[in-house]
């Protein structure tokens, strides 16, 4: 195990404090588990916060049915290994209507992710939902609170955010309100990887470089994960040494050309990289301020 830099110790302490505040203030909390590296760090922190007990909240996974197969395998292994309670939700309307990323574009994200999340939070009557979002991911996230209030319908109103002082987190809710809680608010992508390395945390193998079948589309490398992939005329899968920086649904998350096959390689690559993490997330580039718009509508 690598020595943990002092600033990671400070970030870890802050995140544990936040997770304990959730346990103390919430009536029915849930942790939104997205299987990615941030979720892996979040689970690790939650285990630390409540050790020797298990974290006092279940995990919720919004399953779009288009996650990479390796992600689902990793999810089930992790849940079993640590004895977490996993709750899954898929938007039944989207499933019935056959909504998919090939035919429906941004409507797919709205229906299978945003709507599905809102449904699951409403059905579960969760008052606090913990997520792994970080302030460095995108400009509109920089102003997000740690305890972020959502109005009725899970909407986010940037101008109605509560002042957040010291380490006092106001988790009081008026009728119809819920909270999203972001314990990794002050972490960067590099912090996440350095911490994963220092703490020996397991992450989905897709983050490590391996030869994978790919096609190029609009300058992005798309990995072919199963036989649901639709090829354009003339397209043929080509094996390339690639890995992922950010994981979502398979035809929407682009891979990067990288030989980084170990955590040490990834941290070294991160230190020299000049491309943002979300550049591979095709949904964020639809329009200017697209993330802010999605957040207002209830996207995580």
């Amino acid at each position, binding site marked *: 195990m690598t020595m943990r830099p002092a600033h990671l110790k400070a970030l870890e302490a802050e995140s544990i404090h936040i997770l304990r505040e959730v346990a103390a203030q919430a009536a029915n909390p849930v942790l939104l588990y997205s299987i990615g590296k941030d979720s892996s760090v979040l689970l690790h922190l939650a285990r630390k916060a409540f050790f020797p007990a298990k974290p006092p909240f279940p995990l919720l996974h919004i399953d779009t049915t288009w996650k990479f197969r390796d992600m689902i395998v990793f999810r089930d292994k992790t849940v079993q290994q640590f004895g977490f309670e996993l709750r899954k939700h898929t938007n039944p309307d989207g499933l019935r209507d056959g909504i998919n990323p090939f035919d429906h574009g941004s409507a797919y994200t709205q229906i299978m992710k945003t709507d599905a999340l809102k449904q699951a939070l409403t059905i579960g009557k969760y008052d606090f939902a913990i997520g792994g979002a970080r302030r460095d991911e995108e400009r509109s996230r920089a102003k997000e609170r740690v305890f972020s209030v959502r109005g009725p319908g899970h909407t986010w109103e940037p101008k109605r955010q509560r002042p957040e002082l010291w380490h006092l987190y*106001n988790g009081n809710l008026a009728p119809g309100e819920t909270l999203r809680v972001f314990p990794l608010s002050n972490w960067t992508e590099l912090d996440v990887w350095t911490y994963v390395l220092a703490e020996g945390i397991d992450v989905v193998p897709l983050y490590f470089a391996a030869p994978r079948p790919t096609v190029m589309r609009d300058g992005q490398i798309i990995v072919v994960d199963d036989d649901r992939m639709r090829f354009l005329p003339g397209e043929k899968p080509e094996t390339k040494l690639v890995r992922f920086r950010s994981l979502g649904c398979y035809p929407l998350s682009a891979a990067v050309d990288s030989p980084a096959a170990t955590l040490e390689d990834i941290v070294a690559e991160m230190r020299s990289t000049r491309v943002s993490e979300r550049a591979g997330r095709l949904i964020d580039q639809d329009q200017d301020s697209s993330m802010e718009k999605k957040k207002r509508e209830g996207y995580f």
Partner: protein
Amino acid sequence: MPDSLLRVLTCGSVDDGKSTLIGRLLFECGSIPDDVLVALERDSRRFGTVEGGTDYALLVDGLAAEREQGVTIDVAYRFFETPVRRFILADSPGHQQYTRNMVTGASTSDFAILLIDARKGILAQTRRHAAIVSLLGIRDVVLAVNKMDLVGFDQAVFDGIVAGFHALLDRLGPLNVTAIPVVARDGDNVTRPSTNMPWYTGATLLATLERAEPTLRPLDVPFRMPVQYVNRPDHTFRGYAGTVEAGTIKPGDTVINTTSRVEAKIAQIVTMDGDLATAGRDEPVTLVLDREIDVSRGDVLAVEPIPALAGQIDAWVVWMDETPLFRGRAYQFMLGTKSVVGTITDITNRLDVDTLTEVAVRELALNEIGRVSISLSHPVACEVYTESRTLGGFVLVDRLTRNTVGAGMVTAIKAARSDVYWHRMDVGKDARALLNGQKPAVLWFTGLSGAGKSTIANLVEKQLLAMGRHSMTLDGDNVRHGLNRDLGFSEADRVENIRRIAEVSKLFVEAGLIVLVSFISPYRNERMLARDCVEEGEFLEIYVDTPVDECRRRDPKGLYQKADSGQLRNFTGVDAPYEAPLDPEIRLPTLEGSPEVLAAKVIDALRERGIIG
């Protein structure tokens, strides 16, 4: 590899070039990825203010609304790192109406950058920013004098500004000041020394931040840990989880629960990485004690000398809500991990941050900072803010909207129950009630002037009397002739008016009586205050529901006519609001029944609730 984390507040106004400075720091430290830079070039053409160049300010002005308006409307957090340090910048806007954001950013920062426009020098807003920085306990600042290119890189201008700032220090309290002349747009003295200002030989801004050692509290203070969460997975384990606020602790040390003053020894310091031999400031731990003592969330585990247990505190309060702060109002008071009800007992002075002097006031408006006294419903372990940010910093939460409406810093503590002792009497409320053959209660009739409150209350009381019950009526108008004759109709006086009536009602409830209060009481907050005075189930909110047009038509006292003609001001329903009850125990729609019918409805409700047999 960065070896530490520095939290820095940046303050300056829209025009000082603060966003540009931050954008420049992020850019120079490699925190801006290539694809974001491409977007920045595109945005610079669309929204930018730097002709033909890259506008780094657009990197940090996050929300679409802000980019369009060209102002920063909220506090934002930015990260960057250098080979020696990782930084968190709390970026808060400088214009006056957003003081609350600056206070928010300052509350978690150890260091501050104060940005000054070299052309303008020290403005009222500079004093305001410095005052807030000082009040929030930041002791180390960099004075970044920006736009030096626009004053010809003139050292005399810089020196004049620095001298002017030093002259403020005796009114601000102790601040360690480092002054640097910069050009944020071009990067002079931001990350590299400026060739334009050879007369400046000090460190660049970035080098200063890398070397900064904030003046923190000494490490040799006694141990304190507010208990966050009791970890009790099964009967074999019971641990107290929290973050160490001050001092160090090791197994075998004796700690005291500040609330109960009961002591125990530390048996184990549990973490997932193994038990610790010692734990210190800012470490999240789970403490196991050697014996079972009563400890819950909100208690503070400490070693001698332990924190005071406050019943009342004096504090600087920064008001953050549109509705002003008044004496008599009650809020949820959150400090450390404790949450109680805090009632504002006094507001004396406001800090005029432009002149750094104090002015006598009776209320605090949005973004004002004042000296406030708060009485606490339960004792709270706390310290003055200059000793401890965690045990001396608190927030006030509105109990209806649940919003954070104020932030405070404790300046003085009055011990709980030391000067005014509560005498426990042998004859109690229950005994008196038993003798009377009834349960005491407050029937709180609320509604517009002329709604029919007093008429119905009068009928109810006559029936109670006929049934041999013991009652008392408090009428809003009548009380103003005596007990409350010193009060007018301003919002602050209305709050005090209702507080006194609630307290008197409580005394009558103690006496075992059924108390009928007929009182406009237009604000939900104040009715909640009255409700809190008595026990659960003893307060019945009775909404005498009459539309304002009907009240105006009845106008038994001719008051609506006066209000409509402007002779009477602050009149509820005309030029002052009435907040209708959301969930009253009893609602009496006067258009649907005669006063007699409605009074009978009240009597029935009293029977149903077992108040009368």
